[in-house]
């Protein structure tokens, strides 16, 4: 039954909605986060003004601490639906390191088959799971920065307040890198965009 629905509809509506809500949240959180970072840079650079959201620090914090709720709520809904509809198991597994390597080699030689977009190749599976793992790290480290006194376990897990900021920064960096590659892949295989908008 579910096999038929997946072949007719490549991405169910709830996946498409949560994908675009997530994309918007990440955009708002990353650009407002850059403005917050600029108030006290960890490294020897600042993000250019035209790229940051919120105007001043207070505005960026308002955006950041509003979008975080939407991101977490949306991600929770996505994860629950993935688990309970069986999509997680169907779409992302089985997955093995040799498969990922083989598909990666094929992709780099331009020989990866994109005829059946209802199935993720192993590189896609690994990349998407990796992106969700990064989102988890970015949320947990963000909580440790926000509530370093009230959440001592999380604070210690991140190596203290100052270190939690660094973890938060690199998780953001990983997500931005993922997004850049992700968008590049969409440019190379444009029919995937249609799938994520129209579902087929």
């Amino acid at each position, binding site marked *: 039954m579910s096999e038929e629905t997946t072949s007719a509809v490549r991405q169910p509506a709830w996946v498409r909605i949560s994908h675009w809500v997530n994309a918007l949240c990440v955009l708002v959180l990353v*650009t407002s986060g850059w403005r917050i970072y600029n108030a006290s840079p960890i490294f020897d650079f600042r993000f250019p003004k035209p790229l940051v*959201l919120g105007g001043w620090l207070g505005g960026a*914090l308002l955006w950041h*601490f*509003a979008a975080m709720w939407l991101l977490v709520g949306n991600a929770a809904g996505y994860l629950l639906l993935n688990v309970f509809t069986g999509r997680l198991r169907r779409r992302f597994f089985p997955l093995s390191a040799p498969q990922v390597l083989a598909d990666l080699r094929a992709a780099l030689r331009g020989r990866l088959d994109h005829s059946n977009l209802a199935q993720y190749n192993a590189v896609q599976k690994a990349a998407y799971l990796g992106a969700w793992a990064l989102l988890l790290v970015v949320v947990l480290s963000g909580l440790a920065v926000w509530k370093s006194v*009230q959440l*001592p376990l999380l604070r210690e897990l991140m190596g203290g*307040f100052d270190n939690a900021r660094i973890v938060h920064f690199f998780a953001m960096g990983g997500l931005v890198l993922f997004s850049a590659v992700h968008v590049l892949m969409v440019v190379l295989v444009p029919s995937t965009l249609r799938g994520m908008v129209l579902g087929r």
Partner: protein
Amino acid sequence: MNVRKALSSLQGSLTPADQRELVKEATGLLKPSARRLVLRHGLTMGGLALLTGCSATSSDEAERLLMKVSRFNDKVQAWLFDPNRMAPTYPESMITRPFPFNAYYEEFEAPVIDGKGFFLQVSGLVRKRDIWSLEQLNALPQEEQITRHICVEGWSAIGRWGGVRFSNFLERIGADTTARYVGFRCADDYFTSIDMPTALHRQTLLALTYDGQTLPRKYGFPMKLRIPTKLGYKNPKHIVEIFVTNDYPGGYWEDQGYNWFGGS
């Protein structure tokens, strides 16, 4: 800015009652400019606004919505706040030296206050509306803490503060601890307010010393409220008046958009 400078130069020669009037008047004068500051900062979306062609009206709408979420975040933080959860404390070797100066003005602009003629005003929902000299405050039981100061900007620094446990002070002045807020007015025209549970937290300190010395001017002479469970802007310096109230008093930065609870 000029009002504040005039104020601090005048303060030495005025009685506490006169000072209070002057502070009140000055705060009244300053408020409109603080509002202009909101407009100047704006909450505009920068490039994103251009991209979507957001008009000024929709940016006002966005601002209102974001402030609503910020009020919601106050409630979440109040709910998350555990009165028995202590902020971590550190050994003396970990103290940040020099401990950074931080304010909405430069260090040389910090108010100059004569400790001898100084009186702290206590008002609002308290049994003993009174003034306190520094001698009286120094005579109260003192304690110390080495804790991490976390700035809203993201940096942090470890410092050593000493003074009167704030809950003891609130008890002494007969504060109505069922009231919602404790507000602070400062000699540098800064003002802020905190929730009662945080005011009663065991680590909330009416700090009179820094690193074993009388609190220096740059760190908030004659006293600052040290709250290791809150961000730096919730730790007012140069306090001249403490009041207990049920009417939301806001704050210098909070009125411009910083989150009010500002918990850590």
